[in-house]
Structures are given as structure tokens and as C-alpha cells.
């Protein structure tokens, strides 16, 4: 993917409002998700990141505005058809007690199977590929509850891969993972994006990783889009101050050249430093 060409959009939010009861969380968001790129949504706690993702993934119906996939309102298309194109991994999925890795990953094939269509080699291939990609082939017969947190998270990602979506939405996929596993997982998603052209949209907390892996960074503040664009243009001290109420310096990441956020707390500020 050449970052210079303007990206077309398949998933697009138009004036989306989302809320729980009277309480509005997402307050009129317009968002064009660039196809074939990695979009990362960041923002302070309570800024509406997860809610926006749920709206984009058809888990929540906008109270106003609409989310369109290929120009058609998500709610005007059969959910199974949407699920073949658009996958979503929510924050707290439930693994049924006693289920094996292979059986759980196989559930990802649900949208591709009719009520009476049998399991066939396409399904088996998709599951095998998903297991191999996530390094889980060896663990296929293990029970999910026996796995470590990092492995378990990979199982869920594998399930989403078995779904073979063209757009994949993930809500904080790196929670509970140590730094090495976080990087592993994000690398996996980046590869998926590069090799298959899968459009990835995810909510992340860790700003350095967000900046490194995002082609397109969206900063939410109080339910609205504060900034959106390439991380290098979006992340600056002013943006951080407004979105997070955080005083910080933005340096260049010596590894990737992307922005690196260094917060200025109250502790351990070097003597003689201007802070």
C-alpha cells in the first residue's frame, strides 16, 4: 500500500450519535475509514472510543446519523452478509467453559455457513490458516481456559481471522498483554494488513504503539473527533493537552521515526530540565 495515494473508503460514519439511554457518548462523528490501511482510535478514558467502535461494528445502533458499508447503511443489510465483510473483536468476549481452541476458532466461520450448509474444506482451510497465523496450531486441542492470557487473546484474534473479514475492528486487543506480546499481536495485524490488504481499525491505549502502527490516527475527545490523520501530523503537544489533559513532549521514535510521547509527570523530572 502506497501511503501517497488517497485511500478510498468502504466504511464511513456520517454524523453518528451513540449513547446509552439519555446519556450520549459519541456526539456527531464523521469518519472515513481508509481502506487497506490501519486506523487507530485513541482518546482519554470515557472519550467514546469503544462506543464508536461498537457503532462502526454494528453492535450499537446510532441514535442519529448512520454508518455505511460500501455506501449502504449497516442496518439495511442482513447481519450475516455484513459479518462476512466486517469482523469485530469486542473487549470482553466469553469463552464457554471447556471449549477447545479449534472449536472456538471454528465459530468464526458462522457467517459463512447457512443454517443447513455443511462444514467444508473452505471452512477447514480458513480455520487452519487462522490457527497457523496465530501460532496456535499446536494448541488446537487444548481447552481455552488452560491457556495464558496472551495465548487466549490470540485465540480470539484467530477466531476473527477465521471469519476472513475484509475489515477487522478490534477493541483494545492488547489489554492484559505484556509489552512483547503486545508488539507480537500488533505485528500480526500489520502483516495481515500488508499481505491480505485487510483494513484494520482498532482502539488502543498505548500512544507510542498507536503512533507506530497507525497509518491513520483518530483522536477522540468527549465524543467528537479532535484530530484525524497520519500520526506525525496529529500527535503534538497541543493535541495531547486537549485530548488527555496531559502535559507531554513529543519526540521522534528512534526506531520508527513516528511520534513518541513522553509525559511530564510530577516525579523524577531531571534537575535542570525546563520542566
Amino acid at each position, binding site marked *: 500500500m502506497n501511503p501517497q495515494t488517497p485511500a478510498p473508503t468502504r466504511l464511513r460514519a456520517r454524523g453518528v450519535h451513540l449513547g446509552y439511554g439519555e446519556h450520549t457518548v459519541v456526539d456527531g462523528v464523521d469518519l472515513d475509514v481508509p481502506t487497506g490501511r490501519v486506523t487507530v482510535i485513541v482518546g482519554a478514558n470515557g472519550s467514546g472510543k469503544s462506543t464508536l467502535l461498537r457503532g462502526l461494528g454494528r453492535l450499537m445502533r446510532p441514535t442519529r446519523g448512520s454508518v455505511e458499508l460500501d455506501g449502504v447503511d449497516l442496518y439495511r443489510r442482513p447481519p450475516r452478509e455484513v459479518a462476512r465483510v466486517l469482523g469485530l473483536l469486542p473487549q470482553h468476549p466469553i469463552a464457554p467453559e471447556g471449549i477447545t481452541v479449534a472449536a472456538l476458532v471454528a465459530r468464526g466461520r458462522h457467517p459463512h455457513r447457512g443454517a443447513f450448509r455443511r462444514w467444508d474444506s473452505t471452512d477447514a482451510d480458513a480455520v487452519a490458516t487462522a490457527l497457523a497465523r496465530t501460532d496456535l496450531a499446536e494448541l488446537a486441542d487444548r481447552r481455552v481456559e488452560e491457556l495464558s492470557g496472551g495465548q487466549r487473546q490470540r485465540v480470539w484474534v484467530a477466531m476473527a481471522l477465521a471469519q476472513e473479514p475484509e475489515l477487522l475492528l478490534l477493541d483494545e486487543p492488547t489489554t492484559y498483554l505484556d509489552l512483547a506480546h503486545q508488539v507480537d499481536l500488533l*505485528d500480526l495485524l500489520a502483516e495481515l494488513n500488508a499481505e491480505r490488504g485487510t483494513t484494520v481499525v482498532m482502539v488502543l491505549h498505548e500512544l507510542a504503539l498507536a503512533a507506530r502502527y497507525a497509518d491513520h490516527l483518530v483522536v477522540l475527545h468527549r465524543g467528537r473527533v479532535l484530530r484525524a490523520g497520519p500520526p506525525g501530523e496529529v500527535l503534538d503537544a497541543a493535541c495531547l493537552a486537549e485530548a488527555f489533559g496531559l502535559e507531554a513532549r513529543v519526540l521522534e521514535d528512534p526506531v520508527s521515526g513516528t511520534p513518541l510521547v513522553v509525559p511530564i509527570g510530577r516525579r523524577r523530572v531531571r534537575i535542570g530540565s525546563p520542566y
Partner: protein
Amino acid sequence: MTTTAPAAPARTSGAPVTPQTGESEGTARLRRRRVAVVVGALLLLALACAASLAWGARDIAPGQVWRALVDPVAGDNDHLVVRDLRVPRTLVGLVGGAAFAAAGVLLQGVTRNPIADPGLLGINAGASLAVVVAIALGASSIGAYVWCAFAGAVLAALVVHLAASLSGDGPTPVTLALVGAAFSALATSAITVVLLTDQRTLGEFRSWQVGSLANRSLDLLPPVLPFVVLGVVLAVAAAPVLDALALGDDVAAALGVRVGRGRALVLLAVVLLCGSAVSLVGPIAFVGLVVPHLARMLVGAHDHRWLLGVSLLLGPSLLLAADVIGRLLAPPGEVEAGLVVAVLGAPVLLAIVRRGRVLA
């Protein structure tokens, strides 16, 4: 997490592929086990049917039973007993047991609560109330009870579903269960009032309420059978939805399941199955509780089609076995199947529980 080594493992091609991945060794083992369980359950059911035809208060030789089925002689009392008494109750037991068991699988799956039984939605209470009212108004045949019970069951489920829909969260499993229990309490109050003031009704109702296969004629089946068949078809169609719902509402929705509609479909199947079963044999909800647990232990908890299939075989086996034992316990009288089911099923349930993992 680079994809270095593991190429896709060899697939077992040609073999009937299970709804699992159908490739790893563990899955293959599970499939063999499932097939073995189904064969065993089929044998068990055949045995139960044979026993139900062959054994009873009247001693009839197996040869006579066979002749009664294939070449009946008019006026032969043995043949009359087999054809007019044992065949109908066997068929009624088959349908009733299967329907209760399937309903149990659906309810436990959709509520994610392993203690859900077909009484949960107020179905039993509704059917019972309707039968009580019918008896109090003068009805006195099983044939009349069937329609009242079915209507009562459907009406109860509708009321419960409507009331649960009024709640802030809509008809979630928890609200459904609570409203169902509340409705049952209400109906039980009404039933008790009638029973305490009307001895004749109590006399009739108490024997209906324990649940029995006795005195069922073949005429009962044709009107009920379409509902059972429709219920089973809906259940099989909804099985993948239950598999997805087990991962949580969010994941299910992300997999393209219409969560609300899927749940409503499952509940519709439950109402059809349960309403039919209650009307045929009385409120023997225990079949619907214990059989799914047994099935889960045998074929695993995560594939609702297998669960349904095995339960459809084990449910009638249990009910017929209970009926046969009830006939043999105290001839010429008999102990109602509904009572024996509890005595047979409770130890099974306790053993499953004791064994350890209870899968929901």
C-alpha cells in the same frame, strides 16, 4: 508471532466432516465418541420402546406382542392390550420425551443457565392453570386437557415474554427467568385457590399434575405432532445461533447473528415443544433438565446440533424407561411416569454433578 513453521495439518478428507474443524486428532476422537454415543442412544431407545411394548401389568409373551403388531387377531385380549394401550403410550412417550428434552437443550443454551428447565418460562404453570380451570368447569378427559394445556402454555409464554419486554433491558435471559418465576407464582396462587375450595378438581388435577403416560389414546397425537415437528425443525435451525450466543451477545452479533431475533426463534421453539409435551404427558419438566446435562457430558457442551440429536434420543428413553418401571412396580396399579422419572433422573443428575465439571 511470525508464521514460521506449522503448515496446515493434513485434513481427513472424504470422511463425514463434523461441524468442528474436522482435522486435528482431538477433534477426530471427539467425532468418533459422538458417533458412538448416538449409536448407543439409538440402541437404548430401541430397547426402551421394546420394553414399553412387551412389559406391563398383564403378562404377554414377546411372540404374542410381535403378532399383535404385525398380524393382530380381532377379539384377542392380549392383542387389544398391546395395540390399544401399549402402542399409544409408547408413541406418546416418544414424542413427549423428545420434546421435553429438546426444549431443555434450547432453554439452557439460550439462558446460559444450567438450571433452566421447561418450567422456567411459566409454561408448566400456564398449562396447569388452564387444566385446573378446565376441570373446575367440568372437563374430565385427557383429550380435553390436551387443548387446554397447550393453549395455557402458549398463552403463559406470550404473557411472560411481553412482560419481560417491558423491562429496561428487554427480554434478556435473566428478566425472562425472573418474570417466568413471578408468573408461575401468580398462576400457582390461582391454582391453589381452586384446589383448596373444590375437592373434585383437586382429585382430578393431582393425578394429571404428576405426569403420566397412562390412558393416552392415539387420537391425541395427530393434533400435537405438527407443533412438535415444527419445534424440532426450528431447534435444529437455531442450533448454530446458540453456539454463537455462547460466546456472548457481542461476539454473536459480530458473527452476524441477530441476537434478539435468534433468541425469539429459540423461545418460539421452546414454547411449541414444551406446550406439546405438557399437553401430552403433563408437566414432567425434569426430563428437560436432566437429559441435556447427560448429553453435555457425553458429547460435549459446545455443539448444539449434537446436543439436540442426542437429547432427542435420550429424552424418550428416560421417559419410557420410567413408564415401564412404574408399570412393573405395583401391578395391577402403576406408579406414574412423572414420579419415576425423578427417582431415576435425580441420581443421574447428582452423579454428573459429583463427577465434576458442569458445563453450561
